[in-house]
């Protein structure tokens, strides 16, 4: 029975990773990376690694998306002011 849950988690991780790479817009990619973080945490729990799962949850679901979204906002805002200035 535990093989089935491992297989489902692995397939979900593979799907999320593909979606994260195919998605070219960084803001939308941050969304997919957040889902990838949650699914990875489940895969780590299923592989009996709760510490790594906790770490992935803490980093993947709130920290990395926040960093990427702030970076996108700064680059987008810089583009707008530069166009305005020209």
């Amino acid at each position: 029975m535990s093989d089935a849950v491992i297989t489902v988690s692995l397939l979900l991780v593979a799907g999320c990773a593909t979606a994260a790479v195919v998605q070219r817009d960084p803001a939308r990619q941050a969304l997919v990376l957040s889902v990838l973080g949650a699914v990875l945490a489940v895969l780590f729990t299923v592989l009996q690694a709760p510490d790594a799962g906790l770490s992935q949850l803490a980093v993947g679901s709130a920290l990395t998306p926040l960093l990427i979204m702030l970076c996108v906002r700064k680059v987008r805002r810089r583009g707008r002011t530069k166009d305005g200035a020209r």
Partner: protein
Amino acid sequence: MNTAMHVLPYLVAVYVFLTGCYGLATSRNLIHAVGCLAVCQSATYVLLLAVGYRDGATAPVFSDIEPGSRPVVDPVVQALTLTDIVVGATVTALLLALVLQIAKRHGTVDPDELRELRG
């Protein structure tokens, strides 16, 4: 079914790693490239933890079970993965800071345009 199970996690790790590399190589936006690098890193975590797994075993944390009462998985790979996830996040932050600097100095985050600027 279980003969496929013997190698499935490793193949998924390889697949995720190659997908991340493909995204990294063909990215037209540096922030997107940093996201693809994070995908590559997560592939290494999957491989590490898959190597340490043991059938029917549980986590080597004995706060709620008796030590030795149940088989346990390998704690060494988990320690490697655990620290690497957090350090990977700060290195991703450093890469994003570099991307901000490039956006400030060259006004673009597209790696192809950057190459022309130097020419």
